[in-house]
């Protein structure tokens, strides 16, 4: 059981970096960006290709991040310069990335078994096992990224990006090119998602062209769990809550699998969870209306 929980925490930390990316597009920019389904695989594909060729696994992660920036740039340009709706822009890039990812990997599935990954290096250096080294690297990177994002969104450029998600009219009236802020935001979001893809692929020792399917839903589930359970007092705690949300999601999944839910039903389970969580405000409205009408009847009686 403890091994299962540790495994869930380690996986959650890696996925939390992806969740931070989703947070930037979905919450900060207010764009549902489906590019992530392709860019998470892109990061995995880049890392697999690099590592199989015998390159440094950290260099591979850096390259995965850069590739993700590129994917975000494409979606951003489609959306802002060609005026294609954001949702469709993301879908177009996602579909295009499927072919790109196959080309990067050369096949649908690349194994990194018994090769030097970012984790084997840490394991060798500190003399810890795989799960612990995943937790160390994932934790350090996630916290580092939270710190960098907190700083970035406090800068002049970062403030302009936050305002764009809030009110693009106002931002243009204050002299900011909203095309640029949207593009920067989408690049950063997909860079992080792609980096997470690289970290995940290295931890499971393979990259698969299908691994991005449903990633956006997992990201949203983690995001909502984080917001609901771990508060949203200020920007820093919001970012941190993404980490806790992603870990909690993985722990929940590990538990329901342990309780006997078939793994094939996982995506259905996740989709239902997200649908329920997203409709939570609506249920609250309904409850309030019910309460008000019931209360009203009692008064009249």
């Amino acid at each position, binding site marked *: 059981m403890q091994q299962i929980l540790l495994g869930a925490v380690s996986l959650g930390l890696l996925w939390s970096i992806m969740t931070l990316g989703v947070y930037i597009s979905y919450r900060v920019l207010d764009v549902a960006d489906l590019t992530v389904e392709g860019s998470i695989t892109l990061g995995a594909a880049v890392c697999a290709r690099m590592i199989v060729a015998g390159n440094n696994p950290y260099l591979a992660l850096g390259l995965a991040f850069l590739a993700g920036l590129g994917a975000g740039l494409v979606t951003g340009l489609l959306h802002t310069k060609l005026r294609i709706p954001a949702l469709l822009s993301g879908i177009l890039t996602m579909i295009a990335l499927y072919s790109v990812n196959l080309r990067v990997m050369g096949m649908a599935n690349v194994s990194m078994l018994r090769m030097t990954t970012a984790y084997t290096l840490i394991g060798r250096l500190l003399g810890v096992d795989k799960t612990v080294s995943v937790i160390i690297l994932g934790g350090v990177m996630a916290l580092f990224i939270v710190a960098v994002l907190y700083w970035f969104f406090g800068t*002049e450029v970062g403030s302009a990006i936050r305002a764009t998600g809030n009110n693009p009219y106002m931002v243009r*009236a204050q002299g900011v090119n909203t095309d640029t802020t949207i593009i920067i935001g989408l690049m950063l979001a997909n860079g992080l998602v792609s980096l997470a893809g690289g970290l995940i692929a290295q931890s499971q020792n393979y990259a698969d062209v299908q691994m991005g399917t449903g990633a956006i839903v997992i990201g949203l589930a983690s995001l909502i769990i984080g917001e609901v359970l771990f508060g949203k007092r200020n920007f820093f705690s919001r970012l941190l809550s993404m980490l806790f949300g992603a870990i909690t999601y993985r722990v929940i999944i590990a538990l329901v699998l342990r309780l006997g839910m078939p793994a094939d039903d996982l995506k259905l389970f996740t989709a239902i969870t997200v649908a329920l969580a997203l409709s939570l405000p609506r249920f609250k409205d309904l409850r309030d209306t019910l309460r008000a009408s019931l209360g009203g009847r009692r008064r009249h009686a």
Partner: protein
Amino acid sequence: MLEISGLSKVFNPGTINEKLALDDISLHLKPGDFVTVIGGNGAGKSTLLNCVAGVYRQERGSITLDGQRIDRLSEHRRARYLGRVFQDPLMGTAADMEIQENLALALRRGKVRSLRWGVTGKEKQGFHQQLASLGLGLEERMSVKVRLLSGGQRQALTLLMAILNAPKLLLLDEHTAALDPKTARKVLELSEQFISGLGLTCMMVTHNMRDAIAYGNRLIMMSQGRIILDVNGGDKKKLTVEELIQMFSTKSGEEVMSDRMLLG
């Protein structure tokens, strides 16, 4: 100062809904002019302001500000010269950001945004003083999210943001129309204070004829995309609402102005 010549704007050209919103408008503003713009619904008042601001591109004509052609600049590039307040109090501010963050965004209008900190401590002190000048107590709530402010407070904040780095031209687009009468009065008085205090050049669209007469040194009346009346200085001061109505019906050939103009 502002030189508009031969400006025309057509919406939905070539379709059954084609509408000539601005019809060969020419207008010259001197530095320090405070022009009130009145006219019925669909007269082209807001379209004129939006063409100057770059929200719309004109079909014909040119707009020159301080000797520089601005009509080919994109909206965000023109913004450095302009301060704008909109009719909808929600339009001018970012709701999920703090009062001081909104002001800091406005303070950087027309400047290059870099990776320097978004709001500095020194700026906050300045904001404290400037907010105090609004007389709404907002200076004690600088880190409150704008979402929590009332419509009037948000509009006053938008006004402060618009004049923060003394724009060459202030565009007020019915900025008090969505407020209750008392708040509208307060925001109008603040506008007047800032405009005369800083010597700003301003175009103010309004539905309210009394306000159009009471404020500013020049009044223009629009109908069907054209300027049908242009009254200056002393003549403007002597205007009455009755005279305006009279002039409107003779000049435009329309019987009455909209109810909003008469009652507002």
